[in-house]
């Protein structure tokens, strides 16, 4: 069943991505064809996918605190790792666009820096998990870091409205931006959906690994008990 879901998500993701690439490169109006604007179609959906993952991880962490079920902790860890990969895509594509538009790879403005601190926080979450051996202690501490990290996610999301700095202001109509021409906004959401499908595939693989790790741990305990 899990395999079927995985392959279905991969096929849907690939189909959506191919269709979106065609639209982004050949169908979009001329306004999208300036200043390497097409990068936005990967930069923004990658951020949305990462934020979705961090919010799911927050829910799983809260569920762990409420129930002490380690399955939720494993789910939070898996989703966070995948979300961090998408956050890396967001930062890297942003830097490439910045090099083109501003002539610099990075600016220490509030919007960029807040995303970097968010990335560092979740990278720290994964490092913390490796540093603690005892599963319940690891799960409890990780859950608190995940919850704290999500406060940072909310800050990053609002930062492009609160701070008028180098990073462009919101352009999407759902954020009262209105800076995109008609038909230019939809591929962002379709790409978000495609990325969510790929994230789903990666999370399924990651969860399968968690199950194998648990099996290894229980076999080891069994071996030591003899």
């Amino acid at each position: 069943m899990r395999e079927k879901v995985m392959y279905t998500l991969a096929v849907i993701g690939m189909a959506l991505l191919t269709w979106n690439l065609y639209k982004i490169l050949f169908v979009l109006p001329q306004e999208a064809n300036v200043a390497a604007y097409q990068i936005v179609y990967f930069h923004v959906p990658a951020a949305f996918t990462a934020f979705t993952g961090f919010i799911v991880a927050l829910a799983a962490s809260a569920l762990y605190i409420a129930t002490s079920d380690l399955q939720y902790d494993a789910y939070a860890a898996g989703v966070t790792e995948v979300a961090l990969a998408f956050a890396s895509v967001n930062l890297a594509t942003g830097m490439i666009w910045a090099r083109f538009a501003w002539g610099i790879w990075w600016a220490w403005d509030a919007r960029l820096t807040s995303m970097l601190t968010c990335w560092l926080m979740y990278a720290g979450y994964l490092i913390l998990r490796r540093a603690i051996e005892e599963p319940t202690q690891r799960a409890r501490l990780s859950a608190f870091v995940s919850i704290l990290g999500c406060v940072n996610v909310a800050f990053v999301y609002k930062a492009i409205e609160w701070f008028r700095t180098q990073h462009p202001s919101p352009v999407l109509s759902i954020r009262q931006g209105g800076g995109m021409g008609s038909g230019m906004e939809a591929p962002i959401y379709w790409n978000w959906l495609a990325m969510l499908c790929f994230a789903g595939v990666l999370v399924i693989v990651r969860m399968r690994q968690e199950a194998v790790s648990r099996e290894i741990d229980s076999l080891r305990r069994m071996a030591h008990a003899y």
Partner: protein
Amino acid sequence: MSPREFQFVFGGFLTAWLILVIYAVSLGLRERRLRKELDRVRQMVEKR
């Protein structure tokens, strides 16, 4: 699209997918390592 713009757009797209592909490959390698470890531990338990 000017050649310079194309370079940056292509670079952006390539970087985005390269990061995800590298992560997916690392997941695959980790899975292979875990499966090997599982087989090793299973054999160890069976021997005992």
